């Protein structure tokens, strides 16, 4: 128990002192995971929508593939992206490896299936009458999509929140593609992994507590936004 108390107090100290290094790390973490969540939402929601609404042969197959992609390990994504952006890869000349952009690319791929799958699941529960009501009132495909997505907003919101949680909490991609370079690509999670490697368990958990506080704050903000939407 002492251990947790120590960790909590250390976390508190870290936050109170506004340690500049910690601030950088938090900044990188937030920037990277928010960007990748946003990108994943940008691509994942339309994809999920298309799969949920369209009726084509092999549709269930596509859903199964998405479900499978939920199980892609970070190492595979890391190596996949690595192969493209490493110096020997096709995009090597862009010098992306060990930058924040690389992490964003990897995390986007990682959380895209989460957004897509849960968008599909949220939409498939929406009564088809919403769609038909919009269509009969003259809405075009795009307007209908907007309407149906609006009706499914809680489910899709949950998907995006889950994607954000996954992105901010994941280590593999950040480590492999970001490289945990101090001041550049060190995120909360890679920092934790480092402290853990060093045997500084207290500091590792303290960083974890900070991470959770931040993601709690983000969630509260999202929740407030949702509350306003509901009115």
């Amino acid at each position: 128990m002492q251990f947790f108390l120590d960790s909590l107090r250390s976390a508190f100290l870290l936050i109170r002192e506004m340690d500049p290094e910690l601030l950088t790390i938090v900044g990188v973490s937030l920037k990277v995971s928010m960007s990748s969540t946003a990108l994943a939402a940008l691509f994942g929601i339309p994809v999920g929508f298309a799969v949920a609404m369209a009726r084509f042969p092999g549709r269930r197959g596509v859903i199964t593939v998405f479900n499978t992609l939920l199980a892609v390990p970070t190492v595979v994504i890391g190596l996949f992206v690595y192969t493209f952006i490493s110096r020997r890869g096709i995009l090597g000349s862009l010098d992306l490896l060990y930058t924040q952009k690389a992490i964003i690319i990897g995390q986007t791929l990682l959380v895209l299936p989460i957004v897509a799958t849960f968008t599909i699941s949220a939409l498939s529960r929406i009564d088809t009458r919403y769609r038909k009501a919009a269509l009969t009132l003259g809405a075009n495909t795009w307007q209908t999509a907007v309407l149906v997505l609006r009706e499914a907003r809680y489910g899709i919101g949950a998907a995006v929140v889950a994607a954000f949680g996954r992105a901010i909490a994941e280590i593999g991609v950040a480590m492999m593609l970001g490289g945990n370079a101090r001041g550049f690509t060190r995120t909360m999670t890679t920092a934790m992994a480092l402290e853990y490697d060093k045997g500084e368990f207290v500091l590792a958990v303290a960083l974890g507590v900070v991470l959770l506080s931040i993601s709690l704050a983000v969630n509260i903000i999202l929740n407030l936004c949702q509350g306003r939407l509901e009115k």
Partner: protein
Amino acid sequence: MLFVGRHIRKTFGQRRVLDLERFALEPGRIHGLLGPNGAGKTTLLHILSFLDRPTSGTLFYDGQPVDFQSQNQLRRLRREVILVDQHPILFTTSVEANVGYGLKVRGVPKTKRRRLVEQSLELVGMRKFLQARAWRLSGGETQRVALARALACSPRVLCLDEPTASVDVEHQIALERIVQDIHAETGMTIILCTHDQRLAAKLVQNTLYLFDGRASRSLYENVFSGQVLTGEDGVSQCQLGANLSLPVSCDDATHLKISLNPKALELLEGAAEPHPDSRYWPGRITQISDAGKHIRFQVDVGLPINVLYKKATPELDKWWIGRETVLRIPSRAVHIL
């Protein structure tokens, strides 16, 4: 012709719920789509409003065959035909946003939209709910807002699926009025599904009667299910109520739907000389009402049965409420559906 259907069929799984050889709906009229539960009315309305495609067959709209593959064409056509669903769904926004939706997607500017929204809500008596949360409304309120939502767009064709099902008496009358007025003013084509005989009688100009997915010539009055029993004499009888039966010639079914043509029925004073071709059921007059050129009598013989007499028929007024009568059912009045 506005709509012409050729061999329109719709199958769900194994079951064919719609099977229409040919039908045609004239523009500018109020068409009644009548029939018992499960007859396929809603299914047909969804096809007519281009929301569902028939399993086979061709639908012509304005003389052109409808290509149910072409989203573009469908979108264009849907702008002309609006369906008000049987259990309409309102979007989880305000009543105002709901009613304004059709206008918004048509690009009507905000101020004009607001005016039109208020007008249509006024029509259905829901003006004061402008800001209410639409998805919380009561059954009848929902139905009225859904109608207002369709009316706001002034479509060319309005398909109404049971528009008065949960609407209160006052607004039933009001809606009846609205439909009549709009039709008179704008010549809007209206396709109306309803189980409310009064409403149908009042509004409908042409009737398409559906039974089991097929068009039927019945008038959708006096429809009853009966059980077929074959007596000792080998004659099949269709048992309708507790002690009402009719001879039927069809004997391969155990259950039948039968319709009695109200114009072929007759009210008699006391037992007349029995005609072998007829059945005689004693009863009492329970309702008399105006049906245009006819007067409709409702006779309670155990089941309420409608009888239509031309208004000009002499001595009709002897059939006062409560009066005992004998209903003569000639065999030509009996249709097996």
